[in-house]
């Protein structure tokens, strides 16, 4: 082995002896492949095995439909659309390609460890990914920023505090998929693609609320300790399914209701436009979360245990989200916006009461839809607790 080529250089990450040992350990395999390739080139012989029919599906044309050429269209071909319950290939070899003959020569990536379909799949995920791409928007140019109108200071401050809260929580909604995405093997690439679209959506949401906070002469206001603990719980989730439940069904479901209530919270057309566009994105994430939970509960090997785990986790998850939901940095600005000013904060509380009841009921409906009935044990009060 040409060891001098592999002498560690520098002092930064990835230069430890351990990193290099790991790198060396695979060198014998790929050096053997390289040697064979070089010998073949020296012999001047071509290897055209990919030109010959080899049992692959060939000759079936796929025409674009009204939505263009989507994954849904190409997945109608059985060999492309049939998804194994267990991913055998822990590498990048595309599902549907001729990869079996090379399996022994290919590396395995240990980080591709979400190898069971029930851990990630949702029956709606392929369509949701296509929809996500079709419904992208640009926070810089699709919001009519130049139409922002001056607001009384209490309303502007409330709008800025609410925007600060949303900037904070949207950040985690982008980070959570990133923790799990690289662990999903090629077998379930549709999920990976959808999570990538969710990260793009959440980056845009964090962007639009950050911009909203400052665009009308206000600024970012208070970050909240209660929010941070709830967000930490999402990031610390012990599995993709549990975290997806906490983020996409519970937290995003509640935020979806808030965006919908944006019609009442918004004091300008700009704010309405922001809330409406974010609402559309959020509803996709909620849909993925709900349908993934359904798939998990229906397909986990031990369904009874799966249900028990979900309930146990929801018991805690609902309480930690309640911690964020009861923060004065969220409820008070909502009441001021609902009441149209700080002098009407008590009247505004009626709006918050309505929003609270709507949020909890919609959460329970989605849980019902997924097969996780929380009605008898939900830890979030059905009615606003004051």
């Amino acid at each position, binding site marked *: 082995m040409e060891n001098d080529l592999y002498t560690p250089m520098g002092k930064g990450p990835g230069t430890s002896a351990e990193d290099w040992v790991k790198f060396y350990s695979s060198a014998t395999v790929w050096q053997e492949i390289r040697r064979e390739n070089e010998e073949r080139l020296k012999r001047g012989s071509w290897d055209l095995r990919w030109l010959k029919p080899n049992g692959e599906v060939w000759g079936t044309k796929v025409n674009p439909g*009204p*939505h263009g050429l989507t994954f849904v269209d190409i997945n109608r071909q059985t060999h492309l659309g049939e998804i194994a319950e267990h991913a055998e290939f822990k590498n990048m070899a595309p599902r549907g390609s001729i990869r079996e003959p090379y399996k022994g020569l290919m590396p395995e990536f240990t980080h591709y460890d979400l190898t069971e379909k029930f851990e990630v799949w949702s029956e709606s995920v392929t*369509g949701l990914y296509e*929809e996500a791409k079709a419904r992208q928007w640009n926070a810089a140019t699709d919001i009519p920023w130049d139409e922002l109108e001056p607001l009384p200071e209490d309303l502007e401050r409330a709008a800025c505090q609410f925007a600060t809260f949303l900037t904070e929580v949207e950040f985690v909604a982008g980070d959570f998929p990133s923790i799990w995405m690289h662990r999903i093997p090629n077998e379930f690439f549709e999920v990976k693609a959808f999570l990538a679209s969710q990260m793009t959506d959440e980056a845009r949401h964090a962007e639009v609320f950050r911009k909203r906070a400052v665009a009308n002469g206000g600024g970012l206001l208070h970050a909240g300790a209660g929010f941070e603990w709830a967000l930490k719980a999402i990031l610390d989730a012990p599995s993709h399914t549990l975290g997806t439940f906490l983020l996409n069904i519970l937290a995003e479901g509640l935020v979806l209701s808030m965006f919908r209530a944006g019609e009442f919270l918004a004091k300008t057309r700009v704010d309405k436009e922001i809330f*409406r566009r974010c609402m559309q994105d959020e509803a996709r994430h909620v849909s993925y979360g709900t*349908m993934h939970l359904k798939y998990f509960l229906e397909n986990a090997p031990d369904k009874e245990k799966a249900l028990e785990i979900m309930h146990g986790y929801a018991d805690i998850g609902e309480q930690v989200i309640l911690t964020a939901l009861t923060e004065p940095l969220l409820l008070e600005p909502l009441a001021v916006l609902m009441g149209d000013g700080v002098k009407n904060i008590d009247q505004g509380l009626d709006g918050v009461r*309505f929003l609270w009841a709507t949020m909890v009921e919609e959460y329970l409906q989605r849980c019902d839809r997924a097969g996780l009935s929380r009605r008898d044990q939900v830890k979030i009060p059905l009615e606003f607790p004051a």
Partner: protein
Amino acid sequence: MIELKVQFPSLDWLRALQGLMNENSARYQKLGYVDARIAVVIEADEGLEERKVYGLVFEAFRCIEVRDLGDPAELNPEFVMEAFYSVWKEMIQNIRENGRADLKHTLNYLSLPGIPMRVWSDDPLNRDKFFRYNQSLQEFFDASCQLETEFVI
């Protein structure tokens, strides 16, 4: 521009909106596609003697079907939008006056508290399609600003 004079509620009124959507595909492509079957219910009041029910079917960037329904269930809709005639009338008049719904006449504003408009579905994920496609649906109804709508009363 020649304005169409059409009566509300009627199949023709919704077909006119269908035509406007399908002629303006660039705008809807910008907003993203819509795949939904929606029942629109106009409850009788203020001069409308009989309840009217229509079905709208959207696929990708087009409204592909508009039809009369005796009952929303005939369409197997993903969600139903229902309100009294007077509510629809006020919304349409507001759109006409402002070129689009003002802040208090959007579909979402009218339906959030469940009154005066109700958006419902037996399946919460189907109801969520009202949220997922909201901007496109608002655009669909906002296009009625281009119609000269005649009301039954």
